[in-house]
């Protein structure tokens, strides 16, 4: 099965806004950080 997340967030530029902190292919655990603003 799969879960798709789609959401709106402040554009990530100049160190501000949203940024992913995981990469493709990474195995994650529930509750693990994926993105920061």
């Amino acid at each position, binding site marked *: 099965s799969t879960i798709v997340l789609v959401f709106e967030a402040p554009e990530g530029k100049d160190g501000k806004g949203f940024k992913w902190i995981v990469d493709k292919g990474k195995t994650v655990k*529930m509750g693990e950080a994926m993105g920061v603003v």
Partner: protein
Amino acid sequence: LRSAWNDTPIKWYPIPVGLGIAYLGFKHYSTVMERERQIAEQDYDPNDPNNKNRRVRPSGPWQVQILSTLPLKALSRVWGKFNEIPLPVIFRPFGFKLYAYIFGVNISEAKNQDLKSYRNLAEFFYRELDPAVRPIDSSSAVVSPSDGKVLMLGEVREGGRVENVKGMTYSLDALLSGQGEEKSASSNPASPAVLFSQAGEGTTKATAPGGQVVDSHEAFAKMNGISYTVGELFSGTEKTAQKAEDQSLPTGDIKQDVAAAVGPKAVNWFRNQVEGSKRLYFAVIYLAPGDYHRFHSPTEWVVETRRHFAGELFSVSPYLQAIMPSLFILNERVVLLGRWKHGFFSMTPVGATNVGSIVLNFDRELRTNSLTKDTKADSLKGHGYAEAHYQLASKLLGGHPLRRGEEMGGFRLG
């Protein structure tokens, strides 16, 4: 002829089982082909000769063609029923340990360690985890909703298309609302950025948090009797000051005046529109058969609407995702639409052949992978999904509020 008919002895011979199966397969294949032909005829729309808005069909190499002829939903339901058969108590520890060994399940993380208490594989599959083994990160904006592998993540490009990685290309609108390719990304009218785009070129309207509709390029603060444009508001005091002389506006640090006049919430909202524009981001997480199959809220948000697409149940293994474009648009899925502090937020659990049943703890009505209710309802409505709204859950918030890490539901076998 009469004597041949009367005198010939009748003998029965067993036919080979394979022959029988081949016959059934051929019979099913011809039925599916005939149904597809009829649908194609019905689907043809003279106003839309290129069939841009036609339903998405499975396309891909021969493996996909063969898969699309199989009765996947029926197989999934049989698989579900099979796994609900109670297992002998003495066999359970051995059986579940074998399953754990094959699929890499970490039994020590389970909340209930007594393997004999799980009556069947379906219960063991939907086991709970000990909360201590899954700490919820509190500092980030978004956490993972489940165990799994990040197959894709990134930013949604112009036109609502999700970034093309290993063949995974699909239209956002088709995923969330079942609409065709050409729809714009503005599928959720409530989002401010979307509001801007909906008004067309040049004449943009915006709804300020207070609910007044104002022209974003003309006077934003009209609602309080003060006349400021968006550009003047944040682009610099010099320009504004001049204007101020012309229109006897207050001079000095205009930002402080505005904040006081219209309130910080409105200021923040416009700062987002002018200084920090919004983007759509996406992530796709694949849950392998051995993974923990309950999903949790990835952040603090309010779910407003649920759209259940009773689609097919192709496998969603990374291999098939790579060779079958638009897989997510074909499969059975439950689209949850809502909003969080930065705007629009959605989460879509997508079912697969072995896990066709998607459960939501706060939505008792939802029945997926069900032959009776859902599919008929959808076809009656003609738009391909059954919709529910959660406004009653909380009038104040307009939906069902979820906290980060809160269990939302899960995938069940079959």
